[in-house]
């Protein structure tokens, strides 16, 4: 039990791992918080499914530095996003903006879900409710008889 607990604790301790080095962190905590928010939503172009905060790549470190430099210089978050999108395209954002080109990305899953639901509805509607013929008078009489016999016992 103790071992399991220790393993769990160690696993949790590994979660906040990020590639940010101590010397990159800004002394102003408010700016650093903004830098972390931006860092999470910016893609490292080298290891493409990691954010720049998670990536050890050289370019990711350069981009983290640029984000912090611009924050210190007084840029707003959208200005910094625009700066990077101008150089690397929308792909640099892990949270892509809604545009005609990204519409499939945004609405694709919902459309697929709707199509699936429509398929289920059509399938259920078309299927006959039951293949068993309805009971006629003779059947009902027989059921009554059988049940009555059962009660006597």
């Amino acid at each position: 039990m103790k071992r399991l607990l220790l393993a769990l604790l160690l696993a949790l301790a590994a979660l906040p791992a990020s590639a940010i080095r101590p010397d990159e962190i800004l002394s102003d905590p408010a700016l650093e918080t903004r830098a972390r928010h931006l860092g999470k939503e910016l893609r490292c172009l080298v290891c493409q499914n990691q954010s720049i905060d998670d990536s050890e790549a050289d370019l990711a470190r350069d981009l983290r530095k640029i984000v912090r430099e611009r924050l210190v210089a007084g840029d707003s978050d959208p200005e910094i996003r625009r700066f990077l999108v101008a150089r690397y395209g929308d792909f640099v954002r892990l949270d892509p903006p809604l545009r005609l080109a990204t519409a499939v990305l945004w609405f694709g899953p919902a459309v697929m879900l709707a199509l699936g639901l429509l398929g289920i509805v059509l399938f259920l509607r078309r299927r006959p409710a039951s293949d068993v013929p309805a009971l006629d008078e003779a059947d009902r009489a027989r059921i009554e008889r059988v049940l009555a016999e059962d009660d006597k016992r």
Partner: protein
Amino acid sequence: MRWLYLAPVAIFAVVAGYFAVGLTRDPGTLPSALLNKPAPEFALPPLNPDKPGLATADLKGAPVLVNVWASWCVPCRAEHPILIRLAREVPVLGFNYKDKTEDARRFLAELGDPYAKIGTDPTGRAAIDWGVYGVPETFVVDAEGRIRHRHVGPLTDRVVAETIRPLLKSLAR
């Protein structure tokens, strides 16, 4: 409702279509965000005292290739002979990325120097303005200084024959 029997076929066709496009594209190769836009403002100091550096003004007048390279980059070594051949057809300008001066000079002394001009970007900041995310990268810049193409990764004979040379031919007209 007989058409419904065709539904699996239609679904297969759509899925196969997605895979046909998706699996043949290289997700590591991004189109340049600067495509058909003017090259960014930049000015890089020279690598050698006897050869000029590289700045925005050098890109105007005639189509050129801008090759981002580094001595520590292995694929750069592979594409180097192709650059030397290309340099006979079009000015090839060198963009030395995050390199040590000595190493870069030794690289060129060993393999030959195809570059008409070489600018050095030791911090990689100018490269970020160009949207560079790895070396080597090669840009085709037209006579007005606009970026017309970006090739990510080492140039190959096939890329030169199928993309670079036809584009340069159309730009020369």
